[in-house]
């Protein structure tokens, strides 16, 4: 395993109380593998990623338990200085909104080159040459001229390519992409996803793709981890999960999306709302919205049951769910 997250807990102290954002997340990703982390807003998918990258706001955030093993070492035990060497060089992150993650007053060449100056001790001139090379790599036309331009002079898709170039700069072993295409139009989204998948294959990187889009997941992922209220509720190879979900939340999500190839009558809608993280229901967090909930779901937190060798579900009734 390239990266393994074990029983991670993160909470945020706020004025109104403690919000339990991540409550025991386990997942792993191998080199060359794409893991999709699927969840709605507030499910803890981005917070987990921030904890892995070491960019969580502490305080108000606090990691209260668990391990993050990256190439065998526990990142949470490293000093900030050592952590900084890992970040960027060995793992990198692509954010959703490229415009606000790029510095508007520095040219893209300076921002790309900075990686090499800081981590590799290159001269400014060499770094600039590297920046041009990278921009070529992510297929930005006229890289030589455009390297001097500023982020606002690029279109949304181009900016996202620059983000990808920046993440790839030091050829990290792991990339975390947090909703990399959500802000883009569909035709551009397809270009960017294709590029990302191609580069991942080429460098044999592990990719954690955080998204809420079940379509994107079906297109690129090898495995899926579905998150709800700070836990993984189901984790499985991509084909299995779409064929027969083993958790009622996954089933609800799949049933509630309109399909391009079908004209349905009424959409299935999961009733109610995601829980307040300051007041997660006892037992299974999904029980108030679950059509299959029984008494045991209101009292006992379901463990991750083994559905098959490479598949888990946190539902007491996963067998019934699997059988529809």
């Amino acid at each position, binding site marked *: 395993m390239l990266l393994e997250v074990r029983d991670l807990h993160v909470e945020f102290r706020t004025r109104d109380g403690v919000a339990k954002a991540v409550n025991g997340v386990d997942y792993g990703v191998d080199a060359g593998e794409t893991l999709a982390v699927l969840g709605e807003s507030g499910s803890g998918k981005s917070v987990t990623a921030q904890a892995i990258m070491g960019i969580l706001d502490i305080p108000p955030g606090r990691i209260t338990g668990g391990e993050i093993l990256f190439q065998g070492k526990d990142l949470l035990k490293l000093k900030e200085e050592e952590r900084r060497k890992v970040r960027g060089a060995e793992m990198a992150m692509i954010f959703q909104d490229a415009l606000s993650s790029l510095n508007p007053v520095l040219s893209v060449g300076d921002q790309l080159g900075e990686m090499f100056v800081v981590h590799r001790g290159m001269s400014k001139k060499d770094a600039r040459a590297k920046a041009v090379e990278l921009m070529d790599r992510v297929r930005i036309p006229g890289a030589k001229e455009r390297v001097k331009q500023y982020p606002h002079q690029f279109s949304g898709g181009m900016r996202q390519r620059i983000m990808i170039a920046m993440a790839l700069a030091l050829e990290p072993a792991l990339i975390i992409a947090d909703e990399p295409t959500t802000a883009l139009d569909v*035709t551009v989204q397809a270009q960017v996803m294709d590029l990302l998948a191609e580069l991942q294959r080429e460098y044999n990187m592990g990719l954690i793709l955080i998204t809420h889009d079940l379509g994107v997941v079906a297109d690129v992922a090898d495995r899926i981890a579905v998150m709800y209220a700070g836990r993984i509720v189901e984790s499985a190879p991509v084909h299995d999960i*779409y064929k027969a979900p083993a958790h009622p939340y996954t089933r609800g999500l*799949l049933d509630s999306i309109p399909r391009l190839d079908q004209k349905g009558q009424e959409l299935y809608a999961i009733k109610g709302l995601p829980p307040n993280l300051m007041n997660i229901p006892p037992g299974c967090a999904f029980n108030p919205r679950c059509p299959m909930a029984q008494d045991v779901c209101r009292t006992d937190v379901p463990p991750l049951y083994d559905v098959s060798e490479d598949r888990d579900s946190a539902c007491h009734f996963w067998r019934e769910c699997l059988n529809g």
Partner: protein
Amino acid sequence: MAEHQEPILEVSGLVKHYPLTTGILFKKQVGAVKAVDGVDFTLNRGETLGIVGESGCGKSTVAKMLVNLERPTAGEIRFKGEDISKLSGKALKSVRRNIQMVFQDPYTSLNPRMTVGDIIGEPYDIHPEVAPKGDRRRKVQDLLDVVGLNPEYINRYPHQFSGGQRQRIGIARGLALRPEVIVADEPVSALDVSVQAQVINLMAGLQDEFELSYLFIAHDLSIVRHISDRVGVMYLGRIVEIGKDAEIYDHPTHPYTQALLSAVPVPDPEAREHRERIILAGDVPSPTNIPSGCRFRTRCWKAQERCELEVPALAVPAEFRHVTGPAAHDSACHFAEEKQVVPSEEPQEPQDPEGKSNGPG
């Protein structure tokens, strides 16, 4: 849905250009952002017309002109036969009552300092003839009930609601004056998947209940297919293809529609391998500098000299003029040809009725 096909809203030659000027004292126009550049469509009573397109294609500007938040540069918007784009004063006010809007962002479209009751009831201040003063509170509570919110929440503020609930408030406000047409601009794109479905179902239910006609604008093609009877595809300020939902989704003839549809991820990993994807090169051209002839030609893989010289009209293409069938619908392309890009619904494998799944158990 609408068998009698009575047009309620007819748009023809609609244009909106925003001038670009230089100079401070003596402004000189040097160009224009051609946000909407000649749009025609008809919305029939009781039907939903979906408008899809990428950002910058002008779909939201069309919406704004329909509800009179923007004045068209040219063209007509006829509501029940009357051109509303040139009305003013009393006549305009009474027409506006009948065309209401639901906005995209439920976080910024509700005033945070007003209670929900005030927000939903505000239309009654402008059109007091709809609800006499003493009656308003009850009317607002009825509306809350209609959109699936607890009527006792009338004194709460927007921040006390979730995104989906806020969008319900926005819909309730849109319904307050009992309009005949609702223009919904990306009404669910800010919402989570599970909540999206709730709001879409609500909108579909309300349409039947109040006999509404919807103009539904979105960039998500799956959602538009789900809710629409007819769909128009916009590119750079124009409609390039329009037709019934099956005509557009299953028998598209315009290359842009085909590319757009093929780019949409389908939530089915099995489709990954045997799906053709058309990946367009480059970005949408700037609306200040629209290509000559066919505006899609700079990204089109079929473009020829004719496309540069001649603007294709939005009509049934010559190839399909003498055939009947789903491919014969309006498409603005010189080289229109049918191409199926969405995996067809015909089951490729025998469907097992009770999940014969691969897991143990």
